């Protein structure tokens, strides 16, 4: 019997954080302008530990102003989606649950676009306007998950198959709504549609939104983490968890709201990137087991690593053209989804 300890969680997270740092450095190096890996790591560490304010070398601007913001954005988006996926899998007791597969990302995208339409018709100050899109995305995500949750219920219990079908139909319906809204929007173009439907990190985001994303992630992740040991018991069913002392209603509300915030924030800045919330939790579960006290931080770091790798591939395979990052995650994610589905049916 070797129960999980805090020390082991911290140690494993430190290893994952080191891998993440390495991946970020490599991602910063990749691109049209070549930079030295060693020099980059040294410069980044000195910025990270506050020795200098900025990288002064000739590649400083490319690295700090162009590549780094995109990587940081991907990092938080990946972490958010992976944590949301882990939470939905436990909450809905379905290993195939993922914000994208269940249509929650599409719901957030519809919310974002509607918010953009409202924002353009009313004249807000720039500070308020920046907050409206993520708010719309959160509401879109929350409403969609509520709808999918009720669609997936049969005789008072969540039915796995019905839930997935409900999610897939919701996603396809909402994709149609996205296309309709974009075509009616002035300046709506194919690239915009790709952004919302496939997920893309290439559009630069205002700094205030990045801060909001970071703060939102920390709060929502913290809220979900307080329910980590409850989620372990919820895997055996809501009634069983209640008999073991879990306040099921509280856990459901906290996780439902926080996972909707994570999905909403991620989608409002990157569109609907698929399968990260499905793949990453499964990989982390294979490595670290299914205890959520370990799995949630591992999924956050793993999601960040995964999306930085996927985005680096997206902007280098077909260079100089950028692929949407969602195309890369779907290429890997869809076959894994089918594998998991078949294993479950077997």
């Amino acid at each position: 019997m070797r129960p999980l300890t805090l020390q082991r969680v911290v140690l494993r997270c430190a290893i994952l954080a080191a891998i993440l740092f390495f991946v970020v450095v490599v991602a910063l190096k990749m691109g049209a302008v070549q930079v030295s890996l060693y020099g980059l790591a040294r410069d980044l560490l000195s910025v990270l530990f506050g020795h200098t304010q900025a990288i002064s070398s000739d590649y400083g601007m490319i690295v700090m102003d162009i590549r780094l913001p995109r990587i940081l954005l991907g990092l938080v988006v990946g972490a958010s989606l992976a944590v949301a996926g882990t939470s939905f899998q436990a909450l809905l007791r379905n290993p195939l649950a993922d914000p994208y597969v269940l249509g929650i990302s599409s719901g957030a995208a519809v919310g974002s676009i509607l918010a953009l339409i409202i924002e353009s018709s009313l004249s807000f100050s720039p500070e308020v306007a920046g907050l409206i899109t993520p708010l719309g995305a959160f509401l879109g995500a929350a409403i969609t998950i509520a709808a999918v949750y009720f669609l997936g219920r049969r005789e008072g219990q969540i039915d796995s198959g019905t839930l997935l079908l409900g999610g897939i139909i919701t996603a396809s319906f909402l994709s149609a709504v996205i296309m309709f809204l974009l075509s009616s929007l002035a300046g709506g173009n194919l690239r915009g549609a790709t952004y919302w439907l496939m997920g893309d990190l290439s559009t630069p985001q205002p700094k205030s939104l990045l801060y909001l994303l970071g703060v939102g992630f920390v709060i929502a992740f913290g809220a979900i983490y307080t329910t980590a040991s409850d989620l372990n018991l919820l895997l055996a069913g809501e009634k069983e968890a209640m008999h073991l002392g879990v306040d099921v209603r509280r856990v459901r509300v906290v996780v439902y709201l926080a996972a909707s915030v994570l999905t909403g924030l991620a989608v409002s800045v990157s569109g609907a990137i698929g399968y990260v919330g499905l793949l990453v939790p499964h990989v982390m579960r294979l490595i670290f087991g299914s205890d959520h006290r370990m799995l949630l931080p591992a999924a956050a770091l793993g999601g960040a690593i995964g999306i930085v790798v996927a985005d680096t591939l997206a902007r280098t395979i077909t260079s100089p053209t950028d692929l949407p990052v969602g195309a890369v995650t779907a290429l890997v994610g869809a076959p894994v989804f089918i594998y998991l589905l078949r294993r479950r049916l077997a």
Partner: protein
Amino acid sequence: MSTQRHPPLAHAAADSGQQRSNSDIRLSVEQVSYAYSANPSQAPLFTLEALSFQARPGEIVAILGPNACGKSTLLKLISGALEPLSGRIFLNGFATNSLSTKTRAQRIALVQQESPLLFPSRAWQFVLQGRHAYGRTLRFETDDDVAIANNALAQVNASHLSDRWMDKISGGEKQRIVLARALAQQPLLLLLDEPTLHLDIGAQVDLLVNLRRLAAENRYTVVVVTHELNLAGEFADQVVLLQKGRCLRVGRPAIVYQKDLLEQVFQAPLSVELTASGRPRVTLLSNN
């Protein structure tokens, strides 16, 4: 295990529930009834008429009756999963529905019919879940929790299964691990919903012998829902006999097991005889 157990009175200060002064009664079900209807405006689809019984520490109570007679409903009412329509259920003098979820889990453990696991877990991880109600938010398991879980596994003779995966062990072994998790809760009241379902006769007897020993050693009050008339007759101190939501008889097996009564309840020709130990034995007679 008993040394680690919270004495019942230790809980008293934390409770806001109504207290009664019954000295030797652990569980008291008082005029409890329940009605289920799919729609509040419609007539109830199922009614459990008011019934009462009491149980002491160390006693095993068997709830018996044909399918859909209300056995599981009664167990859910005792566990607190359902609110009674009328009447009250007291555990050590405290109304069970006034207890918080956590306190209830520290006092009442429920072994339900099998529920599938979403992701594989090892037997020891499963047993440690029984300690959840004793931890604070985010608390990692302490050495005490581990000792109690190990003790629980030893009590059901399953220490050797500790490192095995739950989906790779037999039905009987799984039942013992589930029971160990309930013991790790260190409850006052142990509830079991058809624990012998899917078990072969050897494993059924093994489980009941274990329950008898645990109830005696740890002074648990055990309430078990079962279809096994002979096992209940052999191991229970009290039997609650239900039919179509009505409680027909409560008492010692030798008193409740009357040929005419059982034939009427189970709609089958039976013979009932008393063994040398004074326990009743039921035999199904052929219709021909």
